Structure formats: C-alpha cells, structure tokens
C-alpha cells in the first residue's frame, strides 16, 4: 500500500535477487568522491548521500560507504544513467555503459581495466549519444571519480537593514548635502571678511532661488519679482543682463568654430 516509495527500491531488490546467481556478465561498478576544492573532506558528506543507476526496466542503488565510494554489485549489461544524490552538493550526471563481456571473465574483474565498463559525463536533455569526456578510474581497476558541480543553496538572503544602505541612497545623500548647506552656509558667510560678504550678498540678492531659500526678506517679497515660469525656462527673471554675456559667450565660441 506504501506504493509511492518502495516501488523503485523494490525493483532493485528484485533485480539483485535475480542476479546473484547469474554473475557471468554482471559487473561491479564503483564510483568514488575524491577530495576536491568543493569538497575538501568527503567524509563530512551526510550519510543519506547515495547514487543510482537507472535504465529502462532496471535500477540500482548504492549508499555512500565509509571509503567515500558507491559500490553497485551485479550490474547487468546496459547503458545506465548514473546520478549521485546528495543533500549538500550537486554532482554531474553520468552515462555508465556496461557491455557484456566474454563468459570467461568473472565479476572479480572490475573497474576500468575491464573493457566492459565505460563511464562518461552526460548532459541532461541532450542526445544520449552526446557524451562528455570519458571518466578514467583513479587507479587501474579502481573507482571512477565523480565530478562535483558545487554546493546546493537552499535559502535566499533577505535584504537586511543597515544604516549604510540607507546612507548610500542618492536621495538621502542629496538631503544630507543640502542640510549641510542649510546649516553651514550662514556660518560660512559670517566668517567671511566684510568685502567678500558684501559681494556675496549682492550675488545672492540677484539669485532668486537663494532668497527663496533664505526666507522672506523684510520689506520686499522675494516672490514679487520672481517669474517662476521664466526661471524654469532657464532665464533668471532679474538677471537678463547676466544671460546676455553668457549668450554672447556662446556666440564667441560659435565664432571660434
């Protein structure tokens, strides 16, 4: 009744059962996880790590052993899809071809020295004949190393709050600069020598924005002679004379050209 889970391993069990006494062409396939930059110490991989070989009507399962290998016994000839299932790391899928060897050979002849066993990398969703590099066993007759793709990421980072991210915001930066101007400018002006100050105040009188920012001027309404539309159009209301030299300037430039 527990149909969903046992179906696959049961098939393995049956497979294994029927195969014990027909070892003439069955082969032992050994895969291994060598230490790599991604997995410096394969001994820390979780015990649930296992590998499967699947083909039409056949499947084999091998748990991770204490030597960091997967041992498939009595694998019948065929072309298998090899997968390594691990909770912490992803592995490249494999194509495992077990070719029927002459009846004289026995199961003890394992590994790559045997002409009956070839392992390649394969690409999911691609043609089965489209093989990658052939994987060679680490030692003659030894285990075939599997390739780690990387560690699995299960979580996404939540954007955490920090003062610096707020400070990096351009709006906040602009606000801070104008705050500094707002507070610092009068002090600066006070510290200027009287001549400069007079000149500066003359300037700021002409600039309508400045007078707007520094509040209503006693006696004269700063908005009185301020032409908003004109200001926005780029010509200062009280600075017609100013705009002329600049246009003349540009004219000069044009003349130069």
């Amino acid at each position, binding site marked *: 009744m527990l149909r*969903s*889970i046992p179906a696959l391993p049961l098939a393995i*069990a049956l497979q294994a*059962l029927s195969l014990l006494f027909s070892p003439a062409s069955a082969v032992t396939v050994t895969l291994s996880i060598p230490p790599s930059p991604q997995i410096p110490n394969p001994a820390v991989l979780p015990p649930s790590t296992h590998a499967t070989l699947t083909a039409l009507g056949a499947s084999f399962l091998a748990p991770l052993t204490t030597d960091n290998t997967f041992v498939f016994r009595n694998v019948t000839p065929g072309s298998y899809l090899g997968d390594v299932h691990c909770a912490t790391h992803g592995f490249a899928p494999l194509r495992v071809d077990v070719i029927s060897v002459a009846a004289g050979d026995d199961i003890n002849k394992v590994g790559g020295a045997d002409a009956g066993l070839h392992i390649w990398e394969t690409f999911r969703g691609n043609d*089965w004949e489209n093989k990658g590099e052939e994987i060679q066993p680490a030692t003659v007759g030894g285990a075939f190393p599997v390739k780690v793709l990387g560690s699995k*990421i*299960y*979580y996404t980072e939540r954007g955490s709050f920090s003062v610096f991210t707020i400070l990096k915001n351009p709006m906040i930066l602009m606000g801070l600069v104008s705050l500094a101007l707002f507070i610092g400018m009068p002090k600066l002006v006070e510290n200027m020598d009287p001549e400069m100050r007079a000149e500066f105040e003359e300037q700021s009188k002409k600039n309508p924005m400045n007078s707007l920012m520094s509040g209503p001027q006693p006696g*004269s309404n700063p908005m009185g002679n301020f032409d908003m539309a004109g200001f926005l159009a780029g010509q200062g209301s009280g600075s017609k004379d100013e705009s002329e030299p600049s246009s003349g300037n540009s004219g000069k430039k044009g003349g130069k050209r």
Partner: protein
Amino acid sequence: MHLSFRALSLSVLLALPASVRAVFQDEVGHIDYHHELLGVPQRETTFFHRPRTEEKASLLYTLSDLGVLGAVNPSNGALVWRQLLAGNITDGGGFLRAAEDQTWLVGAYGNAVSSWDALTGRNAWSLNSNGVVKDVEVMEITERGGKDVLGLFQEPGATVTRRIHGTEGHVVWEHREVNKDVPLQVSTSLDKVFVVTLHGSLLSYGLKVMVLDTLTGKKLDEIPLGTKSEVQSPQDVMFVGANSAAPIVAWTDNGLTKLKVNVLGLKSKQEFDLPAGTVDVEIHAPHTIQSSPHFLVHSRTKSGHKADVFHIDLKSNVITKAYELPLIEGGSAFSTSSSGANVYFTRVTNDEIIVTSSTSHGILGRWPLKSGAEKLGALHGVSEVIKKAGDSYAVRAVAVTDSDDWTQVVNGELGWTRLEGLSGAVAATWAEFPQSEDLARTLEAEAHGNPLSAYVHRVKRHVNDLQYLPAYLQSIPQRLLSSIVGSEGTEAADEVTRDSFGFNKLVVLATKRGKLYGLDAGNHGKIVWSKNANETPSGRHWDVKAIHADNTKGFVTVRGSEGQFIIVKSDTGKTVEAMPSSLFPPVDGAVVVDSDAGPWLLPIERDGKLADVQIAWAPKQTVVTRTGDNEIQGFNYVEKDELASAIPIWSFSPSAGQHIVDIATRPQHDPIASIGRVLGDRTVKYKYLNPNTIVIAAVDNKNSVLSTYLLDTVSGEVLATSSYEGVDSNKDITCTLSENWFLCTYYGQYQLRDSQAQKIKGYQVVVSDLYESELANDRGPLGDAANFSSLDPVDFPTGPALPSVVSKTFILSGPITSLAVTQTRQGIAIRQLLAYMPESHSIIAIPRMLLEPRRPVGRDPTPAELEEGLAKYAPAIELDPRMTVSHARDVLGVRSIIAAPAILESTCLVFAYGVDVFGSRVTPSQAFDILGKGFNKVTLLATVAALFVGVVGLGPMVRKKQINMRWQAPM
C-alpha cells in the same frame, strides 16, 4: 558541448521567473515544522551501543517497524543519523546487532545483510543473497581477533549459514544444509556455532540444533530437541540466547503453561511452570560473552506481570531459578544492562523504576516516576545502569509506550519523548476548527429573528462579551510589545482557535498502527489530541481507504478496508460513532458525494460495487468506480422503490495489453480565477474548464508504452489521449490534474522521432494544457454559450466539444512522486506543482510557469511572449534546491502531500506525511497580502522616531533663523 550544457542550465536558471524564491533562513522553524521520525522501535532491534570505543558516550540504536535504522542521542533524543535499511518502507521485522567494542552495526532485512558505521551512518558493506535472511548474529571471538557476522539464510530448499567478515563483508565460510527445515536462529558460544531450525511440517514442528565449527563451518553434530510436534509455529520459540557464555533456546507449549529451556549443545531440556493465565512471555538476557549467564523470564497475565530470574551453572549446565520479582498489576517493561560480569535488570512499571542485580533479589535502586498525570504504559525498553560511588546506582531507560511514543526516563525523571507514533501515516486530511461556526450561527439567528428579540439578544451578547474586556485590555501592552519585537509566540496559545489568516488548521492523521492524531498546523504541528481508533489484531495494519472532514459539523470520518469506520470530532478527537470491522462489507474506497442530506462519504465495495442507499442520501453526481483491474465505470443513482440504486451508464477500458497505473482526479477545492489566458498581443485563449474530468494513465508492460486518457466523467467520453514510448512500468508513474492542465511523470528511454535520431533517457514530466480552441479569441464549437453539457454534442455530428491540447515534455534531474497542486482561496495566485523527491528526501514546489507547454521551441521568445512570461523551451529542468519547500530538511518516506488554502489568497498550506511529518506554507506568487518577517517593525518605528526628532529639533532652528532674518536690516 560541455559549454553548451553549462549555457543551457544557466539559461534554465535564468528562465525561472522572479516568483521562484527559496525559503528565507529566518522563516525556518517559523512557517514550517518537521517531525523527524524513525518509526516505533522494535524490542529485538533496539539497544545502547558505544560507537567509538575510546569515547564513553553511547548512542541509542534502533531498527524500527518501518525499516528505518537510526541512531538517537540519548541525552536529548535528537536524531544522529538514519537510513532506510532495505531502501524502502517495510512492515516490521529485520535484524540489527552491534558488536561490542567495534565501530559497526550489522543489519539485515529481506535478502540483504549490510554493515553500517555506528557514528556516521555510512555503509561499510552490503551482501545480497539468493534467500531470505532469518537471523544475524555477531561472532564475538574469532581466531583473527576481530569480530565477524553470522548470517542465517533460508534459500529455496536449503538452510544456509554464512560467516561474513566483519569489516570487509566477504563470506568466510558457508554451510549449506539441503532440507525443508524452517531456519529459526543462529547463536554462538566460545567455540561453536548453533543453528536452531524447526523440523517437520506446519503445526507439528520439532526443534533441531545444528552445531557447526567456527573455523570451517563444518557440521559437528545435530541435536533434535524435545518431542516432535512440540512446537506449532516459529512464534512459539521465545528466545535463543546469543553470545552469552551459555546460550539457551527457550520455547513454550501452546497453552503457555510451561516454559522449556535448553542450554544449546546439550540434549536435555528443563521445564518451568509459568503463572496461570499467562498471555505473553518474554526472555531477557545479556548479550555479551563476559556477562554472567543469567536470564529473566517476564510473563504477562491479563491483569499484571511478574518476572523470574534464572541462573545457569556453567559447569553442570543446570538451570536453577534464583529469585522472582513480585507480581504487579498493570504492564511494565523489563530490560537488561550489563557491565563486565554484572547483569542488571531494570523494571519500568507505570509508576516506578526498579533496578535489581541478576545475582540477588535485593533492590539496588528505586525511583518513583514523576511523570505527572499521564501514566507511562511502557511496552518494552532498553536501559543503562551505571554504578556510582558507594552503593548508589543511576539508571536511564528508554521505553516504547502504549501510545507509540518513545520516552526516556532518567532516575524517575521523564526526559525526552519522541513522537514515533506519528510515523507510518497512511491518510490525512485538513479540518477547520469548528468553534467560530457558533458565532456565525448566532448572527444568522439574530438576522432571521424578530427585530426586538434580536436586539435584546444582541445587547445581552455584548454585555456578556464585556467580561472578556479586562483580560483583553491587559493583553494589549504585551501583544503590542511582542508584535514590535517580532516574537509573536504561537506557543503561548494553549487553546486552539482559528486565526484571521487561516493558518491555524487541524490535520487529522491516521497511522497504520490504528492511531488517530489531531495536529495543529498553525502551531508547529503540535499534537492536539491522539487516540487509538482501530483495534487491529497484531500484525494487521489499519488500511485506511478514505478520510473526510465535514467542516460544517466538525466531524472527521475515517473508513478502513474491512468495512470499519470511525467518526470523530475534529477538534477534540471524541468518538461520535464507530463501527468495528467485518460488520459491513469490505470496501475498496470511498468518495465524497453530494446528496439532499448533505455531503457524505459513499463507500465503494469490492470490485467497484455500489450498494443501494436511502433516497435522501442518493448522490447527485455520477460516481466513477474502478470495477476491475482494467475497467472504470460511471454510475448514476436512480430511484427504485424506497431506495436509490446505482445504474452503470458508461464503462471505460484502456487498449488491450494495458493496465491502469494511476487515476488522477481534480482537487475538491479548485477555484478558477480567470476563464482565459491573456496573450501578449491582448488576445485571449479560453481555457477548457470541464469540472467532470479525470486522467487515467495506463501502461503496456510488454511494449513499455504509457497512454494517458482524459475522460469526461459524465459521458464517459475520451476527450484526449496520447501515448509515450519507452516508459518504464516498474518505476513510478503518477499524474495530477488541476484547472485546465494535467501532467504525468515517468521514467522514459526512447528515440526521438526527429530528423536527427536522438535518444533520450531520464525522468520526465509531460504537461498538457487544455484550451477550448487552438485559436485565440475563439471559444471553438461552444461559441458564446454560458453552459455546456457533456451529453449534448455541440458541433454535431463530430461529437462533443473536444479540447485543444498543447503538450510539452521536460526531462527532470530526478524522480518526483506524490504529486499535488497548490490551492489558494480564490485561485488567483499562480499554481505550483508540489512533489516529493524520493532520492533527495525533500519536497519541491515547481512553478507552473516553468512547466509551461506554450514555451517557444528552437527560437527566442518574441517580446509579446516575454510579456506573458514565456521563456525559451529547454528540455531539461534542473530541480533547483531553492525550489524545495523543505529546504535542507531530510524528509523521509513521504507517502502523500496534501494542500489546503489559507484565508490569505497568497498562501497555501502544505502537509506531507509518510515516515516523517512535515508541514509548511508556500506562497506561489510571493506573499503579497501579508507582511513577512522581512518587514522590520523596529526599523520602521526607529525611522519614524528619527524623523520626529529631526522635525522637533530642526523646527526651532528654522524659526529662529527666520525671525533673525526679519530683524536684519534690508540690504
């Protein structure tokens, strides 16, 4: 090519819509819960063992009744590692032994013996055989110095004993005895191996002991024990002592009046009387070779239990009764613990723990249980006794209780409890908390009553409600505070209530051991109630065929296969009605049908037969049943005399040679928010939304062809069919159906019918969308009709309106099973496919957008298609770990996943059961209607406060400046 593969998987990852988001780390344990379970530990396969000789700490090992081999940390009850010993869920049995001072354990089930590293849970070796493993024993003393394993196998026509090398796993020797005996157990003493078999025929067996040489496995002797037909069944043999200096075999007569004991290797047996009315006998003996050869016979009677301790004289091999422990009412569990030659017996009764030494009846320690109100009810257990300074002792015992829990008791104090009873779940359903229906009913009564009385009633109700006001006011500051710091404790809520988000729901879970549980999904899956719902004879499981929650009444109905059913209240578990088995005919299943008397669970008898029902209870819909292995029939109920009886109206069989492997039906709650899909060019493709459809998957084993049939259940018409070649019928084939699409998953290996012949191999999923017409802005033969009938052919004479089917096949990076589809309240949020990944032990939510049949093939999507969210078709779908709902959790053996909508449209509740119990919430279109944990209330308040301070601080400054300006002389 390598590069293109990389590029390919990258493109697949990029194709994932933004709505695919993984679980946030801070939500772990907040929105999800997980009971990591092993199954109920078995008496023979549970023990303490030191995984590393140099370290003093021991772990608790068990092989449970589900075939899960696991190690538990005895100090806190946490799982250290676990493995499915046989690769799948089993039905009890199996063997587990540990070798003293060795780092490995040896387990066996079915035809395989395997060895596991005790600390890491890694496999050391495994050995498959041609026969069934009947017993496994550790050989403590070998000529080599290490320890070996003895395995007893029953092969066809032979009893095979193998000595297996302890660390390398190869067979040292094999002894094959060709006979028809039933191999029972294997045992070893210092210099001999004993194989106990049953000789004879069923119900009249005689015991036979074969003595083998430890070095070569040669048979030295054969000793028949007792008279013939003394033993009726293998169950009558109580115990074969293992690894003690003087191993014994003990058996009882059929009436449980006498216990017969033989020291293995001798021809004589000794008989001892059992107490009158004994119903059960257990023998406890130490398992180490240096322990004193003492053993304890625990005999249970109907009302109580007692124990007798026996000693074996090593020189004369005479067994003498040393002392007895008095008869105590109620049940209890005995266990042995040995250190050196000392053997201690621990007795865990309902109210105390008593430790005695095997040499004398003097009590070494006695601790009353401080367990509170609930009695322990220990069935069996294991214990560790430590002798402390002086004459004091400490004991820790771990016992399996009659509520299927696994509880540790340290010196009388209750330690941890593992809720192993939740494992092995066979059926579950969501149920609402019933209480808020009261208010709804009151309001309804007020609305319909006389205005004056309704007003009086209402005022009374409000006055009555005033009594809760002070408590409410009192709770405000605390709630405010907890809301701000984000420690909203759902744990604080003792009483279970509905919440405004709809996260608090009950899950009623039935296990194969006959227990029913009510779990609070909103409170980390806490057990609200549990009860023993089904009295099954031992060895038989509760085969639940249907479970249904009636939320208007607040009842949950559970139907078993033997015709038994139980109706309980969903919030308290109180039995409303119960029917024992075999009073009603056995059932194949049960379906929820609508009738004049309301919805109810209609039982379907064997072979799809439907019994006559009262007219008021007659189902209004067509009932579809599976009438044979390969036949499906639709029935309508028609009135006949006083009753309504089912009349078959159509039947369906797949093509010859095929057999049905899966039938997918629509979820009960399947709202459709939109009847069409707006395409990128603002045209609409109308969905084919026929509520009366099922999907049938049938497979031809010989030719490996899978056919799917979309069936109209009213007319029995096949609406769509397709076949897939090269489908493995031995691997899982599952389908699911929702809205206007269905999908099936299988293992396929076939040649593409393409210009370049390509071969494909792997786990696949085929998804089919159903539309009313192939064209956009077209409703096909239906035209503008608001209704349609399955029975009226619309575009006569070609038959009923057939859907236009768009299909795509994808290759998955692993198998998926137990399919389900997310459900939301209105069906506005996009759907996700929920599935269990049996190889990765996790639950994945695959967005429907990824499994979209309209993804363009062989070209980049046009801007209009991109607007729709269609990415270029890539044949492979990597099951990204970020799509897993269960994230890094190891969820073992999921049998089924059930989904339920919350009140919030964004959220769907998910619950998975099997070996483990896991629950979570998924938000397929992001949590758009609720503030998640990412919304930091403290930051918000701090920002508001900072702004306020800024305004208050800057205000006077500005005012001062303006005033100063006014007083300055104009320039």
